[in-house]
Each structure stands twice: as C-alpha cells, then as structure tokens.
C-alpha cells in the first residue's frame, strides 16, 4: 500500500515536471497588436501639433495672455519642463511611418510634421538632440546639436521633402485630407518661417537665411498664400476638443492680456472683437483685457471689479469643435513683408504687408480693413518698419504664442514691459525654457555641453533668462 502510493506520487510528480515549462499561449496579451498602421501613426503625429501652437506659456511671455487667478507662470516662475516625451511620442511615431516604407508621400509628410515639432522644441529650449535623435537602439544616447545645426537640418529636410513630394497616396492626413500639393506648400512655407527667424544671425541679403528664404519663395509648389490654404487642425468636439475651449471648461485661469487689447484699441483694429470673449456672457465679445502680470491680490481685486473681463477668443471661436491654426497665410505673408523690408527679396514690402494684414482680418471672419487703417501712423510703413511689421506679426499670430514670442525675442517688438509682480530674480521676461532637472541626472554627458554653450552669452547658463542662438546678434 505504502509503496504503491509512493510510486503513484512519483509518477504524478514526473508528469508534472515534464509539463512544467509549457504554458501554451498564456503569456500572449490578447489586448494588443504588434502590427502598426502607418496612417494611424501619422494621424497621431499630426495630432501633437496643435498642442504646441496653443501652449499657454509662450503666450504668457509674449503677453497675449495673463493669469487671472493664482498667477505663477505668467510671473516667470522657474520653468524646467522636459521634452523627451516629444521624441518617444509623436516624433518616433512619425519616424516609424518613415521606416515602414508606407509610400513616398507618407515619408515626406512625416518628415515635414517632424520638422514642425523640432522647430517648436528648438525655439523653446535652444540646442536639442536632432541629427542623432530617433535612431532607436542604434544611437541610445544622442548628442545635443547646436541650434544652428538644428535649424540648418530642419531647413534642409523641408527642402528635400518639398522636392520629393510626388503623386503617391497619403493616408491619415487630418489636415489636408491627403492632398500632396498642400504639403508641398507647407514645406516651403515652414522653410520661409524658419529662415526669417535667423535674420538676427544672418542679416544680409546674400546670407544663408536670405538665400534659403528666396529659394523657398521661388520653390516649386508655392507657399501658403490664401486662407483656404492655411494649415488648420480641426476637432470633432467629442472625442477631441479644442484646447482653448478646454481652458474654460471648468476653469477660468487665463484672460486676454491688456497688452493686446491696448494695442488693438490704439490701432482701432477690428480684430479686438474676435480676440476676446466676455467672461460673463458667452455670446458677447470683450475688449476688457486683463492687466498683465499682476500679483494675486491685485489681479483678484481687478477681476472682482471687472466681471466682464476678456477671455482668450470669442466663445464661438473657441468652441469644442473650433479649429486651431498651425500656420496661416497671414503669418507667411507678413514674413514675406519682413524679408522684403530686409532687402532679401524684390517684393514690395508695403504691398505684401497690407496683404498679410488683410489675410489676418479675413481669417477671423472680418472684412478687409478700410484704407484708413493702413494709413495711420502706427501702421503705414515708411518709418519704424521693423517695429510695425513685427507688431502686425505679433497680432496676426494670435493666439499662437510660439510665433509671437519668436517675433518679440528677435525684434524686441512690440515693446513689452515685464510683469510688475515678476517673481524671478532678474525681473525679466523669460527668453527660453530651461532643461529638465532629470537631464542632469540621466543625460549629463549630453546636456552639459549645451548648457555650457549658453554661458557664452551673458554667462546666464541654462536659465530661463539666457538667450538662445538666434536670439543673439
């Protein structure tokens, strides 16, 4: 009996052992796929774009907006945001579209969208990983490129993409409904916008920036010249909603800054109507801009006394399904005016300038401004052209803080007074984002040279007040 039992048990154990390591498909996750879809990855990459053009922080620095309660960031609190998520997120998704060989135009569109995102990153932080980035395990720890190299790389990539676009199919393009011609225009337009951003570094008509600008202007396929050609991201208002709608869906943290309403009032500019929505009455416009950069106590008192203060955009223009402008004809046209004024091109500055302003009015559903608008002293070109063009660029880009901050950093126009309640030691407007703390613990070997390069100008180093490369003469 006892022996039998031991035998039986041994047998049982034996059976157990032989089957021990086999679990069949137990470890196969039923809820994921290992098959990627190029079109779905492209849509996802494109969907990262409006986040950048509606980011509040550059808008605070450019005094488009100001915080209406518990102001912190608009008073220049320490800003050490990280940006690695953009690389592993949308940039790498777009890189996958390229490596999947999903068709020539898919690759080119992915490349263009990538340059748009890199542009946003380098204008905020300065030097960033570019040439060695997105190589996966091949280059596990990419170096930071100088901003000059990043800019030249982006411009070259856009040039190549524009030239390479053919008639092949695009799928997942939620901006232009898979139209290759539109992407050609976008590539050329972005190239122009990037080239003009370098005017402080390459001011002459024969310099790198002017050469690239002219080439883009003349490039096959053209550039964004009408509002119908604008790069616009549209929302369905259900699964995906306009971020600015989201700012006011439950909170009221931001107002249109008085800096903007003052400017528009002084120019008797009709855009004052669409740019501000009444905080109290959703169907009304408001031109009651919130004084910029006040302390909590002061802004609180002002808001309590002025319940009809201006929110960013009139309510119908920031509905859940309102579009977000990524790049507009007005912006591109005003860049052309700037280039003409610099003597880079042979276009007539004042003509293109007025065209740009008109496009901006029309973009917001307004009729073209009356002739009197263009003849007023603060608008008509002739004197202070740099200031006037910059001011119009600043107005036309609203609410895209990135462009506005770029314009101000490069030209110092419009003249902005730092927040009276500034909390930073220098009491100056931030000129860049600082690298994240984690870069110094995890990526010191790469971030340190970039931080050291920032010391070259004013010895500010990796601070919010240091100037990035194109921000220097």
């Amino acid at each position, binding site marked *: 009996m006892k022996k039998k039992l031991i035998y039986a048990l041994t047998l049982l154990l034996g059976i157990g052992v032989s089957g*021990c390591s086999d679990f069949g498909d137990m470890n196969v996750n039923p809820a994921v796929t290992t098959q990627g879809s190029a079109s779905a990855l492209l849509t996802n990459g494109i969907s990262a774009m409006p986040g950048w053009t509606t980011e509040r922080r550059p808008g605070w620095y450019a005094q488009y907006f100001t915080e209406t309660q518990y102001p912190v960031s608009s008073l220049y609190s320490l800003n050490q945001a990280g940006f690695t998520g953009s690389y592993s997120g949308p940039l790498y998704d777009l890189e996958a579209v390229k490596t999947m060989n999903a068709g020539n135009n898919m690759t080119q569109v992915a490349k263009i969208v990538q340059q748009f995102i890199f542009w946003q990153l380098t204008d905020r932080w300065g030097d960033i990983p570019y040439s060695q980035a997105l190589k996966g395990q091949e280059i596990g720890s990419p170096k930071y490129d100088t901003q000059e190299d990043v800019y030249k790389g982006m411009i070259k990539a856009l040039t190549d993409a524009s030239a390479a676009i053919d008639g092949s199919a695009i799928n997942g393009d939620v901006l232009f409904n898979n139209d290759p011609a539109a992407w050609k225009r976008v590539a050329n337009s972005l190239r122009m916008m990037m080239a003009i951003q370098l005017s402080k570094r390459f001011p002459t008509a024969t310099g790198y920036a002017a050469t690239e600008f002219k080439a883009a202007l003349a490039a096959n396929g053209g550039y964004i010249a009408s509002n119908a050609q604008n790069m616009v991201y549209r929302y369905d208002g259900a699964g995906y909603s306009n971020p600015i709608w989201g700012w006011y869906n439950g909170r009221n943290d931001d107002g249109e800054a008085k800096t903007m309403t003052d400017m528009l009032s002084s120019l008797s500019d009709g855009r004052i109507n669409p740019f501000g929505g009444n905080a109290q009455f959703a169907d009304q416009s408001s031109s009651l801009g919130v004084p910029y950069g006040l302390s909590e106590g002061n802004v609180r008192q002002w808001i309590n006394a002025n319940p009809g203060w201006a929110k960013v955009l009139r309510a119908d223009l920031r509905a859940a399904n309102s579009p977000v402008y990524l790049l507009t004809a007005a912006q591109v046209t005003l860049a052309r005016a700037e280039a003409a004024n610099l003597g880079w091109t042979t276009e007539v500055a004042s003509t293109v300038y007025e065209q740009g302003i008109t496009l901006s009015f029309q973009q917001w559903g307004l009729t073209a401004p009356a002739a009197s608008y263009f003849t007023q002293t603060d608008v008509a070109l002739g004197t202070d052209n740099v200031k006037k063009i910059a001011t119009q660029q600043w107005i036309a880009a609203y609410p895209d803080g990135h462009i506005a901050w770029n314009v101000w950093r490069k030209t110092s126009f419009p003249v902005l007074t730092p927040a009276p309640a500034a909390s930073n030691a220098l009491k100056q407007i931030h000129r860049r984002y600082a690298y994240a703390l984690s870069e110094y613990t995890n990526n010191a070997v790469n971030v340190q040279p970039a931080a050291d390069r920032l010391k070259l100008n004013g010895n500010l180093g990796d601070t919010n007040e240091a100037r990035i490369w194109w921000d220097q003469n």
Partner: protein
Amino acid sequence: MKKLVLSLFILLAVSVVSFAQERTITGTVTSSEDGLPIPGVSVKVKEIAGSGVTTGSDGKFSIKVTAAGKTLVVSSIAFSTKEVAITGTSVSITLDPDTKGLNEVVVQGVYGTKSTQRTSTSNLQTISGDKLNTVRSTNINNALAGKVAGVQVRSQSAAALGRNTEVRLRGGNGFGTGNGVLYVVDGTVLPNADDINLDDIEDISVMQGPAASALLGAQGSNGAIIITTKKGRSGPGKGITVNLGATFEDAYVLPNYQNSYAGGNSANLMKYTWKATDPLEWKALDGKYYHDYSDDTSWGPRMVGQEYIPWYAWYGGTKYSYKTTTLDPQPNNARDYYNTGVNLNNTISYGTSNEKSNFKMTYGNQYVSGLIPESDLLKNTFQLVGNYDISKHFSVGANINYVKQVLNGNIEDGYSNLGTGAFNQWFHRNLDMGIMKELKDLTVPGAAPGRDILASWNHFNPTAYDPANTFGFYGNHYWFNPYSYQDYNTNENQRDRLYGNVSLTYKVNNDLKFTATYRKQQNTTFSEGKTYDILQRSGQSIGAFNGYSTANTYSNIENYEGVGNYVKKIKDFSLALTAGVDIRRQRSNSNSANTNNGLSIPDLFTVNNSVNPPSIGNGRSKEGWNALFSHATVGYKNYIFLDATVRNDWFSTLPEDNNSVLSKSFGASFVFSDLLPANIKGSWLSEGKLRASWGEVPEQLAAYQYPGLAYGVNAQKLFGNLLMQYPDGIVDPTISGAVKIQKEIGVDFKFLNRRLTVSGTLWDKTESGLPRNVAINAYSGLSSVLTNVGKIKMKGLEVQVGGDPIRSTNFSWNISATYANLLDNEIVEISDKYGINTITAASITFGLPGMVHHKGQQWGQLYGSGMKVNADGVPILDASGLYQTQAGVYYGSVNPKHTGGIQNNFTIFNMFDVSANIDWQIGGKFSSLSNMWGSYSGLTARTATVNDKGMSIRDAVADGGGVRVDGVSEAGQPVTFYVPAQTYFSNFYSRSIWTPYVYDLTFVKLREVSIGYRIPVKKLGLDKFVQSASFSLIARNPVLIYAKTKDFDPSEVSGSAGETAQLPGTRGLGFNLRIGF
C-alpha cells in the same frame, strides 16, 4: 468542492452524537514555582487521539472523557509536560518550569513544514494572537508595529477608511517603494492584509527574506507574513466566544495653523457700497466691511473681533441673512469638520473538537462610521475551519473565508480634493464649521428654474454682482461648501472575497503523510461614483462635471498542491522532509467606464448618458507558475540542526525556453548551551543558540511584460481616423528573473530560568538583476527598456529582548522590546549597460522631492530642487533678499535608520491585565505638499509669526514688518533683508525651492493601551452560563509622544515619498467585552 464541504458537515453532525457516553473531568493547573494558575495549558487524554482542551485565564479546564480515557497529558510552553492518571472527576495539577526548552512553540510554516525556536535557522519572530490583538485592531499591519524587529509599518490615518497599509521588511526591496510582502493565511496567499479578522489569528510569524522564505519561491522574495488561524477546540462550556468592541476615533494631529489673519488676498477689509443694481436686501449691509471671499487663501485682514460681513450674510432665507458678525479666528475649524468615528467590531465564534474532528466558525461584523462626513464601512467576515479524520489514514479539512465589504464616501487626500485634507492647503481661517454644516443645503436661484446654485463660502466679492448674471457672484469659485460636496459626490466600493482551501490527507503512518490541497482566492469588486449636476452648475473654477463612473474587477487565483511530509527519528538523528508540487493559475479581468464632459440628461446616472463619448477600460490577464519544491531539516541530538530548501519555478511570464528559476536556502542552528556544564546552565544561562542561514530567491515578471512591443490604440477616432502610438518600450531579449540573496547570523539566549530572552541577528542582503522597466534616453525615440537592472546592498541588525522582571502572585510584568538598525544601505548600480543611474520610484505633484534610487546613494532618496547655499550652508540670496534655486538636492533616504518598539504587559491581582505598546523610528524623510501650499496660502502658523523687531511678519516692511532673511549675496557678502511675508512664502513655490517642506519621519508613539478586567464570573454566580468574561478599555494611538514634525503623524504619511493632502492623525478610545460561554 461544495459536495465535499457538505459531507464534512454531515460527518461533523454525526460525530456530535457520539458524545453521549462521556464524563467530564474538571481541574486547575498551577505553576510549582509561584503557585499561580497557568492559562493556555494544553490538556489531552492520552488514549484518545484528537481530544484536547486548553486552560482558561484562571488555569481551569474541563474535558470530556470516554471510558477509554485513563491518563491526562498536560503540557505548556516553558513547563515540563506531565502525565496524570484519571481518578476522580476533579483534579489539581502542578507543572514544573521546564529548563530544557524542549516543549517550544511550534510554528507552522508553509506546505506543512514546522519549526520551533530551537530548530529555526533564521530570525523567526512569532507573535501570538493575544499579543498582536491587544486593542482589537482591525488592521493586521498596524497591529504589528513595534512588535517585530525589522518591520517598518506604514500606517494610514483612521479617517482613510478601507485604505491599504503597508509594511517594509528589512529596509525595503527592489527599485519600487519597497513593499510587496506576501501574506499567507493557513497556506493561502493573499494580496494584502486587509481581509483578515484579527480575532481569528492564533499566531503570526514574519519571514524577513530569502533565507526564510525560499520555500515560497519568487512570490516570497520580498519576505512573507505567515498567519495561522485558530482551530476549533473543546473547552469548558459551550465553546462560544463573543467579542463586543467599540472604539471612538477623533482627529488628533493636524497642521499648526495661524489664527491671526482672515481669508482672502486683501490685507484690509473692504467697504461695501450698495448700488441700485444690487439686491435690495443688501442695502442692510451698505457701508459695512467684508473680506475677500473669492480667493481661498488666508492673507486677509487681521482678526480682532471687528464687525464684518460673513460669507453667508449675502444669502437670503437664513437667520444670518444680511447681518454682520465679528471677525474672529476659528482655531479648530479644520478639526471640527471631522466627525467622531465610531468603530463597532463584534465577533462571535464557536469551536469544538473531539477525537476525530475539530470545527470552528467565526462571524465578524465591523461597522465604521468614518471621521469624514458621509463615509462609512461595513464589513462581514465569515470563517469556517474544520478537520475530520475519516479513517485511520484519511482525513479531510477545509478552511473557508468569505469577506464582504461595502465602503461609502469620499476618502480623498490628493491635491485639491474638495472635502477633506485640502483644509491644510487652501482655506479661510475665519470660517465657522458649525455654520458651514448648518447651511449645507442653502441655495440661491440660478439662471433658470431647477438650476439653483449651492451657497459657498468661496463666492465672489460683491463688486462682481451683475443682476443679468448672478452666477458671476454666487458661483462657487474653487470650493463648494465641503458638507454639500460630500452629499453630492458619492462613491461606493464593494468587495467580495472568498479564500481558503480544501484538503485531503493520507496518513501512511505516524511518520509519513501526503496532502492534496486545492486553494482559491477570489476577489470581486464593484465601484460606482456619482457627481450630481448641482455641483457642475454651482462651480466656477472647479471643473466638477455631472458624471458617473463604474468599474468591476474579478480576480481568481487557484493553487493545486501536492505535498508529502516525512518525519523520522533514528537514534540521535531526527529528520523532517517535505516535498511537493504547487501549481498556480491566476486570472484577472476588469471593466470600467466613465462619462465625459457631463451628462446629457442631468443626474441620469448611466454611462450612455455621457455628453462626450464615454471612456471605457477593459483589462485582462492570465498568468501561472508550476513549482516543485523540497525542504529538509536534519537534527542531531536535538541541539544541532541543518536545513535546506530547494524550489524550482516555471513561469508563464518569462521567455518560454528560459522560464525556469531556482530558489534555494541553507541554514544551521546549534544550541551550544546543551553542551555546557550543568552548573552554568542551571545558574544563569538557560539556553544559548547560534544560527546562520543563507537564501537566494529570484523575482518574476508580471504578465505580458515579455516580449513587449505592442502598439497602443486611442479609444476615440478623429473624423474616422484611428490614432496609434509606436511602442516606445523595448524588452531586453535576455530578460530573466532577479536574484535576491540574503544571509544572516544570529544568537538566541535565554537567561535566568528563561525569564530573560535576548536575540540578535545580523543580516546582509544583495539584490541584483531586478527585472524592471527603466527610463532610457528618450531622444533615441525609445523611452524605456525592460531589463535586468541594479544591485542593492543592505545590512542590518535586529535585536529582540523579552523578560519577566516581576512574577509574583499579585503582580507580574512582562516586557518585550524590538530594535532594528539599518546599518548600511546603498544602490551599487542601476544599469551601466544602458547608462541609467536613476530610477524614480514615487513622485509628488508640483515637482516636490520624490523618491528616487540613484547609483551611489542610499536606497529611496528624496530628491528634488532646493535652496541654493554656499559651502558653509548659508543661503545665497538674490537682490530682493529671496532664496534661489539649487537644481538637484539629495535630502536623504525615506527609510528610517532605527526602528523598534516596546510592549509591556502587567497582570495585577489576577484581575487586571494592562498592556502598553510603544513604537518608534528615527530617520527617514518625506515631503509635504500640504505645508508647501499651506504656507503659500497663509494658513500655517509660520506665516503669521513675529520678526526680530517684534513686528508681525505680515506688516509692511517699511513699518518694521517682513520676514527677516539672512544669507550671503551673490558676491559672498553677508546680507540681511526683510521680505514681505506673502512674497517670501510664494517664492518657494515659484522658484521650486522645497527645502522647508522636507520633514523627518522620526517619531515615538504610544500606539496601543489596553486595561482589562477579568470579571469574576464565579463570584458573581454567573458561572452556570458564562465561563469567562473580561472587560477592557482600549486606546489606539493615544499619544504621539514625540514627532520631529509637529504638523503630521509621521507614522501615517499617505505616500511613499510624502503626502499631498494628509488626512489628520487620529486617536481612538474604546472598550471591549469578551465573553466565553
């Protein structure tokens, strides 16, 4: 299984019939040393297997004996066993103290293994149920605090109903937050300690790590807490025990608030001037003064009892309408919000046994009405344990536990929760909680009928009033009335857990048995949350949406065990062998859904009613392992013992061709005192033992981590376009289980007739190659790699001391103490292969210092930006006299350096039992978001102090006010500034300087006190009905004797890195009545 249980019941029922021809022997057992009765003595009838009772607290017993019974066997720990012939029906037995120590507590291990203090090769710490359950705690982890050396208990506020507590063994494990201890109840693994009724516990033993827990394999790599529940026993009387307990908990430790300045962001009261568009009733307030209601900080006017318009005066329909009052501090307003928590904890238990069977049933009922308004918890636990010998060879057993819990309420302590802990962050110091509660249902008409708006203390100022849009004034800015919020934001959580086992044992002979066991642990949860429309329509800057969320989860773990146990004594050698197989299968499913952006039809709570497409969650996983194991202990002459464990696991979660991992441990113990001359042993040294052990246990992966590479898909399409993310995580193809090695040596001494015991253990552990998803340089496009990382080295010392300093007829005192020192604690490597030096284990919102593991640093560093100082530690100030930011600061480990506790038990006149348990820890850090915001918003005491000029720091600098700041300038020159208080405190946030908000975890706490009175049932003539009765007064957390931070109870910090809106420390007082029938 059902059938088996049923037949068990039938068999038990039959067995009861056979009691008919019995007689009852009663008796008393006393000690020959002091003549005192000995409780807990085992009394058995030698001739009848399975018989046995234990003596009560008075040393008395009563046992039923059939005709076959001739001899009683009487045994107890620390006494020599005695056999007494049965002569009459009443007997007096005296026992002699045992100096050989042969009859020690037998500790049940897993898979039928057993050990004693003598044979154990590691620091086996066992706590009896009585010692554990001094104050009838409802949480096993809390009950362990200070009682086991090397255990750091991380308790939670009693206000946080249903919240998990955690323990860290020996300084924590791995690269997480250091938890992951396994709870094993009668051999069944539970995921946490939540669902164990402490009244059921016989004893609990803590296996600190691989050397002790190797038999459990990978699941036990972080240590295990082994719980053995009580079995049915026959005793005098009916075998029914009733425990009735009630405790009352109150908020105890709250932050220190300032009580000088009122709410708002205007330092002066403002004059209200009535205007024609304002409500006519407000005319009564014309010319009176108000403070800023709209801002939820307390940088308002000084409170000196002056007349002002309170927040509620602006609403009609109350006795306070349109009336002013005086502006006074409300020092206890946060405290007043919390109710007195009432905790009723009742159990009834029935147990019996006879020669063939034992049986026990317990029903526990716990009802807690929480400290947070509208919160309560109801828990029913049911346990059924039985064993029946079918024949000489076969026996069946079952152990079935069912737990049902229903929890209601908003138990929130995250940032900006609207109910509770946020009082420490944003509030007005002049708010009267009584009036707040009284007005919780007050509303004003809204824009349309049925759109009424709740009244809130945080409405706008009267200058914002516009008759065309009254919401601009009445809308609740950041806060609802917190009482209204609890009414209109409801959460319900239910849990049904079923666990236990059924087993069949085949006993070949006295030496050999085989047991087949089926185990199950099933948990089903259901939760539902509702936010009512009135909150959405009342809130201005709150973002509360009318909404509904629901979730269901199901998890089921099943084990199939086959174990053989063989015990043999051959001459001087003893052998205990265990070998078996354990097959485990685990499955979990979850479904959840919540509405987005409101409900289309207000307050119709269903997922379909969502304004925007609802979010849906769906999760499922399957995993399993198969294991073969064996364990052997060889003893020589009962003073040398060697043991060895080998276990091999095959995991479904590892690569198929490399899924086998081996756990092993070895140990030895040597009771050297047995070899010492009798005169030494007899005089002062009762027993001396050396022990050493070594173990190595791997760690496994979670389901589906390998092989990775999975695309994510967004739930929502954009105009028909799918959105997909490329997988950013990669998996190292060589991924395998970790290796955790632990070794320890120790000594156990017993002195002076065992009246003093001392144990010391030195341990050393190394963990390496932990499989972990770690962040890599994401500029490559890849954000993480699942690989084997790291090397962690820790060393520590544990000391346990126990003694009976006084043992006399009328007074005895028993004391035990534990102490642990984390001697050494270092992260040697993270991943040199991937260039990773840091792992973030826990973060806190707003960038406050979180818990990181950094190469070359101690485990669990608190790391984040701080204050810039020079080489001498003096702050470097900017031109305004403000502190500047230092990028990365290591603040120290979250691990306390020293932990310990002292338990005292006194018995007075054999009538009173008094216990007092203290526990303490020294060292360890945590961050406090509450104090950061509390200071930013002018709530904390430090924001209203007096400077060295004798002026309030809130007074204007020009008038001699301001915070005095000393430091050095950028140029290194000593400088002194006076900085406006609000600027000073907001600067810490705007510049991310967290130095003032990192605190020490050091504390000394009187955690448990119990004063018990043994009711003399015999004297009172109740002994016909009642066998024993005792009444105890108990106190939980009565005194926080010392804490380095005065604002929180450091033993109850909610998160691993710190707290984000800590609920108050609490203290409870109560009573317990225990009756044995």
